[in-house]
């Protein structure tokens, strides 16, 4: 999924590594453009009530599958047309951004926090902690992702929290592996040794010394995975385990609309395009982040 990032010759420079990387990132127009797209989507999500022309959940069966405004039978008060229950597609896409981004962000937040802590512990403490965590990681990785999520949702029932839980439950394994590898390398570095020599506690070393220096690969991996989580949520919706109605996530809109693909293509195509734009934006931006943050590519 990601090339292993070697923790070579990484030392603390006078200028914060993070800030220098940010500067590098900003130099790439493509990355900046994508970041702008992502930012716009986030803005749209946050300020959804300002943008949405209608109540996203107001159904009117007489407007069922109304085509977009520019097509025959369309109406500019419903610019992108209506879904199967006669709800305004544009408004639902705008509000759906909230749900999709919320799911993506919370899964990654939970997973990254868990994974980072576990990875730090495994990589720094070694011994039985490492064995224990590594075994759990092996077991979870050996369990097919979607099957795991489906089984978990079958067990707990669909719903926003359960979807986040089902996706995060395994997602943490990925940052955990990355952080463990980086920590293993970092613990041999001078700055860690000197901190140890000065009598710093284990917690202090892990969180204050090592963590800031291995943050870059974690950021890269997290952004890529966030894009992936948004797609995975769509897959869960496809299998009938998406968010609860009347709330719409983009994934559930594409999934519900797919059966109308022949007679009302707009119902699933517009949210599909929204997913594409957001995820592509995140991916391109994160590629930029990687190019900037990964020391291997520094010229």
């Amino acid at each position: 999924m990601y090339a292993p990032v070697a923790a070579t010759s990484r030392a603390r420079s006078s200028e914060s590594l993070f800030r220098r990387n940010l500067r590098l990132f900003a130099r790439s127009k493509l990355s900046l453009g994508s970041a702008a797209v992502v930012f716009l989507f986030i803005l749209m999500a946050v300020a959804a009530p300002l943008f949405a022309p209608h109540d996203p959940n107001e159904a009117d069966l007489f407007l069922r599958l109304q085509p977009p405004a520019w097509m025959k039978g369309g109406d500019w008060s419903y610019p992108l047309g209506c879904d199967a229950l006669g709800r305004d597609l544009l408004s639902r896409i705008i509000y759906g951004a909230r749900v999709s981004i919320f799911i993506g962000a919370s899964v990654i937040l939970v997973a990254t926090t868990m994974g980072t802590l576990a990875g730090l512990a495994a990589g720094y403490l070694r011994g039985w902690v490492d064995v224990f965590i590594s075994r759990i990681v092996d077991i979870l990785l050996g369990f097919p992702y979607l099957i795991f999520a489906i089984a978990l949702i079958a067990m707990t029932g669909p719903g926003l929290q359960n979807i986040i839980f089902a996706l995060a439950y395994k997602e943490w394994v990925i940052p955990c592996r990355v952080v463990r590898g980086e920590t293993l390398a970092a613990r041999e570095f001078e700055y860690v040794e000197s901190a140890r020599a000065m009598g710093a506690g284990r917690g202090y070393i892990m969180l204050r010394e090592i963590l800031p220096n291995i943050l870059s690969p974690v950021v890269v991996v997290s952004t890529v995975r966030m894009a992936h989580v948004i797609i995975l949520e769509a897959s869960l919706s496809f299998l009938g385990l998406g968010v609860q109605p009347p709330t719409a996530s983009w994934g559930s809109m594409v999934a519900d609309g797919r059966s109308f693909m022949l007679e009302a293509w707009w119902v699933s195509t517009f949210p599909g395009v929204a997913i594409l734009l957001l995820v592509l934006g995140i991916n391109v931006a994160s590629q930029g982040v990687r190019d900037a943050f990964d020391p291997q590519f520094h010229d």
Partner: protein
Amino acid sequence: MKKKWMAWGVAAAVALPTLAGAAELRVGFTMDALTLDPANHRKRETETIIRNMYDGILTRDSAMRVVPELAAGWSQIDPVTYEFKLRSGVTFHDGTPFTAEDVKFTYERLTREGAMDGQTSPRQSLVGDLKEVVAVDPLTVRFVLNAPAPIFPAMQPFQEMVSKSFVEKIGPGGLANQVNGTGPFKLVEWRKGDSVIMERFEGYYGGAADIPPTRQACVDRVIFKIIPENASRVAALLAGDVHIINDLPAHAIRQVENNPDTRVMAVNGTRSSYIALNNQKAPFDDVRVRRAVAHALDRQLIVDKILNGNASLIDGILSPDAFGKNTNLPAYAYDVSKAKALLAEAGYAGGLDVTLDVDGANKEIAEAIGAVLGKAGIRVKVVVGEGSQLVKRYRTKGAPIDGQMWLTSWGNGSLDPVGIFVPTHRTADRGNSSGYSNPKVDQLLDAAGAELDRTKRASLYAQAEALVNQDLPFVYLWVAQDLYGVSNRVTGWQPSADSRINLHDACLK
């Protein structure tokens, strides 16, 4: 492993030299057969596939009347004894004659505990409470029941006759993958998960005498092609890859009709849709609230908009085609002010907040119901759950139900009230998802179950339905039509109300 190998080899050797340009009818079908053994499953889709290779002693005609198929006729000797005369000259696919011994063997396999390689047939309770089967002579067979069961003939079209000598030859589990029936098609190959391939059985006796045409099948070959995804199945029909698809979504009707090469065929279904209301707890322990929901629900609007008009409304559990249907049930007409008045009377003048559970497949209808009920002050929160979980929560056999409203349905291929009215409405029965209990209804249902006089039996069910209509433990919605997309190349085929796809009469232009 080696055996399988050889089976493949034989299948291919048989298949390869067949005529190019043979008439090959392909059916885009939702679900693969679970097994090819007619006695070892409880799945309608599996039966639909198998029924093209196996015949029963009885079958149903297009009006859903029970008529003889492998039987020449039948009579009831006393309340617990039925005698069937079998047709002569019928052979299995391997050429051996079909006799009363095969019928006896088939039914014993279905009903005897542990008869299927140590397991009990899951179809046991579909047969009836059988005491014994007697082969009187090679063409006469007698069924003796433990108790009178008027439904007995209606359940026999579901049972397919297997060959005794064949099963003894291939072993008890062999029928799972091999077929030797008396039906119009022989098995060529079962590509699991992909398709079931059959070819015409030249020695076919012609099928039920009452259902013309009686002759061999029209097409050379039939393929049930498994395409579970709705959009893909419709696409396969429009692209001409398949000639018949089942389970056509109502919203795709226009597409199929607009396509010059395809058409839509509809037939009354047998599945009653309804909303189960939890009668055990407030607010639905109050009949006024239940009636308010019924009045607040514009069922016709939902049928017109979501189901494209392809459903008939019902005011009791039974389908309009079912035996014993009470045709004089009062309807709870759409009337918002009446609904509001009933709610106010019950103490919910400010409206009502309720949760409607539904499985993923029926989400759209549940949301539409929610939107319509909202106009009468019944604020519905639709919660999508997983089907198997909802069954567990609502069909509690009398134990407390965990939930308020559940949009669900119950299928009734036999069109007899025993298969639907009893399990859903009798106190603590397995399909009773509203916690409904009315001793009078129980009495009527029990009496009807043992009543052999058809008129009396029908009137008992009608009385029960009238009582239930007043109690309204469920909000009865509709019986939707089964929709099929059919290529214009197909002639002679009619969809059947019991969801079977009998391809015996189908031809391909």
